[in-house]
């Protein structure tokens, strides 16, 4: 079968056919006009020759009378050039005088001039002739003169033109149809390749990719885009899988602990204080799990939701000052100096709660992992390509190859595995940064880590909450 079912139902093919039909209509119109004007021109030429010959014969009659005319006719009859001409001169009672036919055609109209005679217009069977184009003249002395020319050649020529044009049209039709079908088959083949890959992915997994032809055409472009989309999806699925593995691990460990503890309490006779401490331990383990759980939920919510509707113009410097103030006692306790340089207001469009939470996490990390060099620098600056918050510590830093991983959920550097924390802090920072279209840039502070949040230049005009942020005062008892 020339066309598979998919090709036959393809919209490209339908479109191709519509084009072929439109082109054919145009081409047939054009060829029809060529045919019509050619044939008309030929007949006109033929009629003109007839009229010229008629005029010549009339002049011979005027000059030499009836005998002069008969002599010219007889001369013409022997001239091979006038082979396909018909001459007939009859007298008043239509009796033959001269010419190469003997009978006067019965149906000849009584008027002088040009007309066409078909075969059946001749009186006798014997004198049947091919169609003629004739010129009829009534001479002054009552003689009738018929001058004709065979249409056979003209008709054959017309036929040839018709055949030529028709063949061209048919050839064109075939070529156009072939081009349409081949284009459709090509498109359908590429689409079919994409479909096959999709089916394969649905059946067996995300490993399949759409084959490229290397032509660099729009189909390859589409395939490339779909492939990179698949790469991204695969990556996300992989991250999700890792996250669930980690969740399972991070939750199972304390759950196992709790289960064991409860089992022991159930099976053994313990005194009241033992029971109490056991219950207290279990509650703090549960709290730990719940904290991890709500951090995870919070990150997914931030990632999943378009919360930008609640975004306001907020002062990054103000938030950073508040965070630093909140962490000052903690830093003091660890004998770390928080050096803040955030002078003028730096406006970013965002959510104060989320920014505060994210920046708290960064400062907390810097204090926790800042090493012995006792200094964490926090700076807010308005750079050419937008506001930048930077936090630099003097700790061991993060190895280059791990910098991408630390933003993942539950990822923890080897050396900090045994420290408190759930490996979600930087994931939250990443989610918040993402929501704010901010980039996280980690560089070497040699020694230490310098982590930057680079915000886009604020563009949207949004209502400011500078005023609402300030709690009324210590006197205003509660918000109502």
């Amino acid at each position, binding site marked *: 079968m020339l066309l598979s079912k998919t090709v036959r139902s393809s919209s490209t093919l339908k479109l191709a056919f519509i084009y072929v039909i439109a082109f054919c209509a145009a081409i047939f119109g054009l060829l029809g006009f060529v045919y019509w004007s050619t044939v008309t021109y030929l007949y006109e030429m033929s009629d003109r020759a007839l009229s010229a010959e008629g005029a010549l014969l009339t002049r011979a009659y005027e000059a030499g009378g009836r005998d002069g005319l008969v002599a010219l006719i007889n001369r013409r009859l022997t001239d091979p050039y006038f082979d396909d001409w018909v001459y007939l001169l009859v007298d008043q009672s239509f009796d033959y005088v001269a010419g190469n036919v003997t009978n006067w055609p019965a149906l000849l109209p009584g008027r002088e001039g040009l007309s066409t005679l078909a075969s059946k217009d001749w009186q006798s069977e014997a004198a049947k002739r091919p169609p003629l184009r004739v010129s009829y003249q009534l001479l002054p002395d009552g003689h009738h003169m018929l001058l004709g020319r065979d249409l056979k050649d003209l008709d054959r020529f017309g036929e040839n033109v018709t055949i030529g044009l028709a063949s061209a049209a048919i050839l064109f039709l075939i070529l156009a149809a072939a081009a349409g079908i081949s284009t459709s088959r090509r498109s359908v083949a590429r689409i079919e390749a994409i479909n096959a890959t999709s089916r394969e992915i649905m059946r067996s997994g995300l490993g399949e990719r759409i084959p490229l032809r290397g032509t660099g055409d729009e189909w390859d472009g589409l395939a490339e885009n779909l492939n990179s989309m698949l790469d991204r999806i695969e990556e996300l699925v992989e991250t999700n899988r890792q996250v669930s593995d980690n969740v399972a691990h991070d939750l199972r460990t304390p759950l196992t602990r709790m289960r064991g503890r409860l089992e022991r309490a159930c099976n053994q006779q313990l005194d009241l204080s033992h029971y109490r401490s056991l219950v207290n331990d279990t*509650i*703090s383990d549960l*709290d730990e799990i*719940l*904290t991890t759980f*709500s*951090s995870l*939920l*919070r990150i997914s*919510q*931030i990632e999943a*939701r378009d*919360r930008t509707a*609640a975004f306001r113009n907020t002062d990054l410097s103000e938030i950073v000052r*508040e965070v630093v*103030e*909140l*962490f*000052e*006692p*903690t830093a*003091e*306790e660890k004998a770390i100096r928080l050096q803040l340089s955030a002078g003028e207001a730096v406006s970013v469009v965002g959510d*104060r*709660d989320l920014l*505060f*939470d994210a920046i*708290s996490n960064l400062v*907390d990390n810097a204090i926790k992992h800042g090493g012995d060099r006792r200094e964490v620098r926090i700076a807010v600056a308005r750079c050419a390509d937008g506001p930048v918050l930077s936090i630099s510590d003097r700790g061991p830093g993060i190895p280059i190859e791990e910098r991408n991983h630390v933003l993942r959920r539950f990822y923890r550097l080897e050396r900090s595995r045994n420290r408190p924390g*759930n490996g979600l*802090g930087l994931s939250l920072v990443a989610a918040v940064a993402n929501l704010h279209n901010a980039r996280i840039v980690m560089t070497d502070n040699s020694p230490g880590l310098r982590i930057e949040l680079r915000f886009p230049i604020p563009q949207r005009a949004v209502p400011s909450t500078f005023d609402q*942020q300030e*709690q009324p005062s*210590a*006197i205003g*008892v*509660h918000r109502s």
Partner: protein
Amino acid sequence: MPGYARHVLVIEDDAETADQLVDCLKSSGYDVDLAVDGEDGLRRALTADYVVMTVDRMLPHIDGIEIIRRLREEGIVTPALILSALGEVDDRVRGLRAGGDDYLVKPFAFREMLARVDALARRSRTMVKETMLRIGDLEIDLLARIARRRGREIELLPREFRLLAYLARNAGQVVSRTMLLQHVWDLHFDPTTNVIDVYVGRVRRKIDSGQDYPLIHTIRGIGFCLRAPE
């Protein structure tokens, strides 16, 4: 204080949670009415005078937010604590916008819930705006923003003063870390580090060191309480 001022309405459809809530509130001296669905809850809230109500966010028939909205339309301003298992980020905003006064995400510690109910109960009781608070030998002038202990002024940063004032307004009651973050920093998320503890620790040093008795107490697992010895 008059008896009716301790009357609390609990609207909660999960039987075990409801039991626990009622137990917990009763054991700290509240009279508790329980409504197990939205319609019942709405009817009770409309007819009786409660000091506080706790409203489950997801209820059969009428959901928690709808109950609060209708009550507010009827002009009933009983403080409402919304208890929700839904994610906090946006739902908190919706709950508070509908007229809820506080919001707690499930699962929660019952002492945290109790601290919130206490705070709301106090709020509906004392609408008097005091400008001078006295707890033991601590004196807080809310207008001048000055704290004195035994007559000696204590130097506090503005935020530290706000923290102390909040503790003082809730003197004798437990205040959770999340409540502090909400009312002192105006932030709506649960702190995951001990940063609040350390911050309160510094305020405590300023207030309590070298004094006859401590005023700021840490309540393990929950938060803090400012109280003078009996």
